């Protein structure tokens, strides 16, 4: 027995509806649920990876900033050290030079004073020798003894009048 080509059959409608529902639940359960689960898991994994990458980038940036700062500070410190060392060395060398100059001046002064003393001693020696010699000469010329003390004054006056020893 065959139905008409264009027929509406209650049995076919009922069975078709049941079949449609069965296929709906089957597809939902066997195809959509597992695939969607996998897709969302993959999405979660991708999100996690992206988040990790973002975190790593943030950390790297922070580290870079830190290193840049440290480097700048280290440069600053080394420059400061160099400056202070230069300053110290300059100071030290100035001190040494000043010390040497002072010492040299001291030695020069000492020598000058020594020389002056020597000169004065030689002068007074010469003066006494000349006065003695003059007394002797005068004794010889006068023929008598001249009181040395009386005549020492005369001789000094003579020498002064002749002029200072150059």
């Amino acid at each position, binding site marked *: 027995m065959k139905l008409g080509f264009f027929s509406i059959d209650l049995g076919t409608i009922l069975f078709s509806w049941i079949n449609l529902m069965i296929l709906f639940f089957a597809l939902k359960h066997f195809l959509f649920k597992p695939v969607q689960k996998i897709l969302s898991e993959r999405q979660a*994994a991708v999100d996690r990876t992206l988040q990790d990458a973002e975190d790593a980038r943030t950390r790297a940036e922070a580290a870079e900033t830190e290193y840049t700062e440290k480097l700048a500070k280290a440069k600053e410190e080394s420059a400061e050290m160099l400056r202070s060392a230069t300053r110290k060395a300059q100071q030290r060398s100035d001190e040494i030079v000043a010390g040497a100059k002072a010492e040299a001046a001291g030695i020069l002064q000492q020598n000058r004073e020594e020389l002056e003393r020597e000169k004065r001693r030689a002068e007074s020696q010469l003066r006494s020798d000349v006065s003695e010699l003059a007394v002797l000469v005068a004794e010889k010329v006068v023929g008598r003894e001249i009181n040395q003390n009386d005549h020492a004054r005369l001789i000094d006056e003579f020498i002064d009048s002749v002029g200072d020893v150059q």
Partner: protein
Amino acid sequence: MAIMALPAFLQGSTELSVTGPKVVTSFRIFGLTINLTETVLLEWIVMAVIIGLSIFLTRGLKVKAVSKRQVIAEMAVEAITNLVSDTMGKRWLAFTPYIATVFCFSIFGSLISLLGFRAVTSDFSVLLTWALMTFILITATKIRFGGVGGYLKGFAEPIPVMLPINILSEIATPTAMALRHFGNIAGGSIIMGLIYFGLTGLSHMLHLQVPVLTIGIPAVLSLYFDLFSDFMQAFIFIMLTMVFISNAGPADDEATSAA
């Protein structure tokens, strides 16, 4: 009718009959005659194929290092999900499995004719069932968003005089959907039957024992009447279902402001 020495499958299409599906068995429940027809058996085969394919494709799913099978399954699910999302909007995504069900059922139910069976979709009752399901979903959506009062009031809009026309258009929606799908597939199968019959007759006129003309020529026409038409009708049916259901709800901005 043709009595020849050739075995039946070499005789070609010697008779042309346009009939409905065979009734395999029928039983009576509450005084109603319930037929179990050829169509229902073919539906079971189609369902077995679809479910079997789903299970096969989704076996051993992995997040990484996916197999070719899994790629196909994912592409299918994503394609239908995107189609529903683009046509209906994101808030209707729960309809995706139903739309996929109708699409697969329609495609496989039509393509089964390529194996020599009657197409499931050349039975009007099947299309009527699917169209009624669409109608139920449309009505359910209207009641869900507008309430029963809002739904009933919708028939008298924009003016009460429109009531008969509105009722008619409400009935016309599933009727037109079912008839369009049925007409295309059943019409295609009739045309293909005519072509086989005609080419067999032509071969006999040329005194060819074996109807050689039926080799090759129908295949080209079958590309349109079976393959293209089957995909087209399945696509049109789900597109209409999606559009009607999403139109039954409020517009997107209203829904989001209400939520």
